[in-house]
Structures are given as C-alpha cells and as structure tokens.
C-alpha cells in the first residue's frame, strides 16, 4: 500500500490522477497540493472524519512553502513513498508567469520537488509528467520518435518549450539514482472530453484564433487525459525507472485538431508569424497563440517501451462527437 503526493492536483490532469488513485486499492493516503482552492470534484473524497485524500495550497515554485510541505506532520506521519509531479498546465496566465530565481516557474517547481524527494528518506518514487515537445523534429510532416531520439537543444527554441526541456534534463539526471526511482512520462498534446486541450505549445490556453505557418500542417500525436492518469498509475506501481513516451493511437494534423477543439488556426507566412510572436512577447501577450511557427514539423511517439515495462496501452479512443450545443467537439471514450 503506497501513500502518494500529487502536485498541481487542482488542474485538470492532476484532478484526473487523484480520482484514479483514489479508487486504486493499492494506494493508501493521497496528499494533493495545488495553487487554488480544492476542486469541487474532490468534495466527496475530502468528506468524512478521516479522509484518505487531503488537500493543501502550496506554491511549488518557492523554496520555503515546498520545504514546509515536505516537512509537514501529515506527510511525515503517513510516510509518503511516491510523489507524482504534474506540471502546471491548466491556467493560461501561468504560461507567462514571472521567472523565479532565474528559472521559468515550471523549471523551478520541478527542481524543488526533485530536491525534496531526494532529501526525504521515505520517498522512494518520483513520477513526473514531461512534454514530448522536447524532441528535435527532423523536417517532415510526421516523425516517429522514440525515447532515445535527440532533444531540441537549439538556443533559439521557444521559451515555453525551453522550460520543458530544462525540466526534462533535471529529471533525466536522476533517472539512474539508486535510492529514488525517477520515472519521466513524456506526453504529447493531451485532450479531454468537451474539446479541452493541454500541454500543447500551439493550442494551449484560451480558445480563439491561432497563427500557424503557411504551407505546414504537422501531425499531432494525441493522448486522452484519462490515459495519462492511467500511465501515471502504472508508473507509480511499476518497479522500473526511466523515461517513457506515452501516447494514444490517434494522430491528427494541427489544423484539424485546432478545429476540433474550437481553436481555429489561421495560416500565415512564416516571417509574419515570427514578427507577431516577437511582438506578442514584447507586449507580454499570450505567446501560445502565435508560437506555433516553431511547430512546422509533427511527430508521433513510439510507446513500445511503456507498453513493455509499464504495461501501459491506451484505453481511450479520441474522436469527434456532437456536443449539446450542436457543435462537433473532440471526445474521448473507452475502446
């Protein structure tokens, strides 16, 4: 029976993970932390005199609150042995969050969580969600990428992707640690029922018009939020450590995905997209709307390692369904 700490549990993927772990008989207590107030979905789990789930608000980008978290009575008494680190992905405002101690907020959070996992004697496993957009993409509409594929270490890479690469490398450095089992799950664009899309540098944030490079329509690997939660569950119970690609069976071009998720994309010549992106960055606007000039080339992921070592296979199908308002939206359903 393992006790689990889940970070950013108030955001959509974190919520999904907490729900799945709550119904897992192999999991004892769950400690969920997030930025905001506890999600309404947790009401049932938090009720009772001795709930299995406990929730706290913690700013994971700052050293003191994270230290307080890992030294808290509840965590020490429960002997947390697994930490699930979910990066920030829900709120669009967070994408332009201030830099903390010279690092992007996402990087600072990952570094602090890893550091405290290493320092806390009871913690044996760290399962972290990373992004598959860290790979260097060879020219081409679609590329099959494995875990050994090259990372994009180009200094001109977009800041959004840069922070993912930094997190990836921070965790990669501890993959062979003897005491702490580190599992990094690289996930592509995550879609959820109702047309929601997460962790996509091109489509993240609020719905609306996006610019994309004219003449390119890269293929986007997809995975459902439920499958991400299942992968985290499998990784937290597995014995192996390492880096795993996690993806569903489906892949669609960027233009189609944008249409399905209510984010229409406008093709514009590459230089125009670059100028608009630079202008948006100067003005502090949401860069996700114009950052897609870096995403001319698409990819899909080879998930055979996760299948072999974690026993993970996508269980959800992603497709189109007609919503209540009559509009066609992306939907996920069990295979």
């Amino acid at each position, binding site marked *: 029976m393992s006790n689990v700490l889940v970070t950013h549990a108030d955001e959509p993927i974190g919520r999904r993970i907490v729900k799945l772990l709550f119904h897992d*008989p192999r999991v*004892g207590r769950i*400690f969920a*932390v997030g930025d905001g*107030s*506890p999600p*309404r979905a947790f009401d*049932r789990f*938090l*009720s*009772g*005199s*001795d709930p299995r789930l*406990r929730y*706290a*608000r*913690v700013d994971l980008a700052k050293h003191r*609150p994270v*230290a*307080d*978290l890992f*030294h*808290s*009575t*509840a*965590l020490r*008494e429960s002997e947390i042995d697994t930490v699930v680190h979910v990066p920030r992905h829900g709120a669009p405002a967070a994408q332009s969050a201030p830099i903390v101690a010279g690092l992007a907020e996402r990087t600072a959070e990952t570094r602090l969580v890893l550091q405290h996992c290493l320092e806390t004697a009871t913690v044996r496993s760290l399962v972290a969600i990373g992004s598959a957009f860290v790979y260097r993409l*060879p*020219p*081409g*509409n*679609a*590329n*099959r*990428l*494995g875990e050994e*594929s090259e990372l994009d270490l180009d200094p001109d890479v977009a800041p959004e992707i840069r922070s993912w690469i930094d997190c990836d490398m921070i965790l990669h450095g501890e993959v062979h640690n003897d005491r702490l089992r580190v599992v990094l799950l690289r996930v592509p664009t995550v879609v959820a029922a109702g047309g929601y899309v997460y962790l996509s540098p091109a489509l993240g944030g609020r719905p609306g018009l996006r610019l994309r*490079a*004219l*003449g*390119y*329509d890269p*293929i986007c*690997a997809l995975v459902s939020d439920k499958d991400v939660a299942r992968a985290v569950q499998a990784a937290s119970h597995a014995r192996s450590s390492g880096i795993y690609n996690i993806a569903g*069976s*489906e*892949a*669609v*071009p960027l233009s*189609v995905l944008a249409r399905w998720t209510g984010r229409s994309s406008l093709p514009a010549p590459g230089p125009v997209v670059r100028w608009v992106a630079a202008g948006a960055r100067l003005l502090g606007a949401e860069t996700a709307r114009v950052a897609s000039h870096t995403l*001319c*080339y698409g990819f*899909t992921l*080879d998930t055979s390692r996760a*299948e072999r070592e974690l*026993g993970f*296979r996508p269980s959800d*199908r992603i*497709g*189109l369904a007609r919503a209540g308002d009559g509009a066609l939206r992306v939907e996920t359903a069990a295979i």
Partner: protein
Amino acid sequence: MSKEIAFSPDEASLGELLASGSGEPALGRDPFAEVVEIDPFLERLDSVRTRGRVLGAAAAPSPGPARQAPAREPGAARPEAPRSWTTVPLPRRRRARTPALGEIELGEPRGWLDRLVGEEDRRRLAALAHLVEGEMPFDRYGFSPETTRQAFPFFHALYRAWFRVRSHGHEHLPQEGAAVLVANHGGLLPFDGAMGVIDVLLHTNPPRLLRSMVDRWAGSLPWINVFFARVGQVVGTRENFTDLLDDGQLVLVFPEGIEGIRKPVTQRYRLQSFHVGFVEQALRARVPIIPMAFIGSDDQAPILYDAKRLARRLGLPVLPITPTFPWLGPLGLLPYPVSYKIAYGEPLAYHERFGPEGAGDARLVRYLANQVRRAVQLLVDRNRS
C-alpha cells in the same frame, strides 16, 4: 505553539530537536494543518442538499442506498477491493492490413473524381481506407485515404497516358507482411516514386500502399511536405523506417539519395553509391529486400550540368541545367513524356541467412548493400536491353 530554534554548534541538540518534533512541523507552517478555503457555492449546495435530505426523509421513509462510501472507523482496515489486479496479457499490436478486392463493399460514386476512375480502381482506393485506425481520418504519418482518392485520377492519368507505364515481376511482391523495395533513382523530380506507388497499388491483391522514404529536404518544403504525408510518403528517418517495417508495410527506398537524381546525362542508369541503412533495417526487422528497376526515369529530365556551388548557396540540393530548364522557367522542370518500365526482381532473403545480429556488423552490411546494388543494376541493364 511556536518553537524557538537556537543555533548551536552541538549537533546532538539539533538532532534531538528534529526528532522531538514528530507531532509538529519541523520548519515553518504546516500546509495541511491550515483550513482549506471552501467555495461559497459549495456551501450553498451543501445546505440545499441537507435541507432536501431532511425534507425527503420526512416524505419518504426509505431514501434508498446512499452513493457515499460507508464511514470507516479511524485505523480500521480498508475493505477489500472489489476488483482483482491480475496481470492481463497485452494484445498484440494491430498490423496495417487491407482487405482483398472481393471483400470491399463499394458505394455509389462520390463526385466527378470518382466517375473518372473505374470500379476496380475505386475498390483499390476503398481498401486503403482500412489502413487508417478507428474513426480517425489520418494514420500516424498523416496518410489520408480521402486525399489519396482525390489525387489518384491525376497520377493515374500520368501513369496511363504520360508515362505509359509497363511493368512485370509483381509475383515477387508479398501479399502481406513487410518488405523493403530498393530501386534506382533519377529524373530530377520523383515521378519514379509516384509511378511505383501507383503500380504497386494497381497490381496487388489485397491492394497495398507503397510507403516511399523521401528525402529530409522534401520534408521541409511548404505544401510539398503536407502532400507527401497525405498520400502516404514518409520522411526517411531511421525511426520511421523501423516503425513502418514493424507495422508490416511495403517500404520503397532509393539508396542513392540525392546523388541519384542529380547525376548527369552521361551517367544515366549507372547506379551511384548506396547508403547502407536499408540493409540494417531489413536484417533487424527480418524482412526480404526486393530489387526494383525504373527504366525511363533517367530520360524524363536529362541533366546537362549541375551548378553545385550555386545550389549550395541557395540551400538547394541540386540546381540543374537541362534542355528545358531554366530556359522555360518552372515549366522546364516538367518531365518529358518518356515511356516507363518497372521491373521487380526476386526477393533477396539475407535476413534468413544472417539474422538481426548481422545488422551490427558494418562490413557485412556494406557488403550486402553492394550486393543489392549489383542486383538492381542487373535488373536495370536487363530491362533496358
């Protein structure tokens, strides 16, 4: 209660201090000890629920089973899980397969494009739709059966009328399972690859889609890269190659690469040196190598001179001077209406003799690549004469 920490060089006292604080946070505040904010909406909802339950209890004596889990005493063992967590063997990955022509149920023609195509060809195109998994209109490489259906009449017209393709040796193409087709390359624009795809589609049952490995440079071209992907062509990276073979597909490679299409007219039908990666892939995946010859491709745009230095400065792989280019502008790049001949040789089953471990032997791989080159050259020479 706040604890005052006095800095002391005595390590023992610090240890006692840390050990004694088992009931309190060692440092700072305890985030789990704080009262979590409750959304006022939920408070209202709770009050409504409570009132409703009381009223409902008064009206109906039996409210039915509650959905909430039964309360447990603190410290009591958790009830056993209703589900057992046994390891379930994972099903094998589905391989890309198409049904035979007789199994296809053909609908009414859709639009004027369908009317240009015969019924049998429509069946072949319909079979390709089975390469796409589930309800998705694309496979993981961006292949779209719909785009292929729309592009087919144009390329079919090129196949029949412009290049007047004749072919033989189709019996060497496997009905199912992966194979690597290795061919000579020529003609500036890759119409040889396109004719190969059409020929394989028209002469196999079940119909098979030939996946050509295209050069990375083509993958970077706007629109071109999208079109290639939609009609099933894939950028030639090692991972893509491996994945297609694992998926049981027919893969066409031109191991000469760019050198093949930019060779001058004096070198036509003389194979340039081969890249060897395809042999490694074939050995690893345990699939046969099928030599393939295109006759006509080297005549469709004879290169008189290749301005390599200027091409390098412009970032182009080739900048040719042909009898029509650059004199006629972009129109000069169009292929001449030469007659094509496509020949398939006997499969070379190196994988049976050397196995996957042979892929790690660089000398063996180079030797086998030369053997394949010789086989393709023989096929070309035989069919030219």
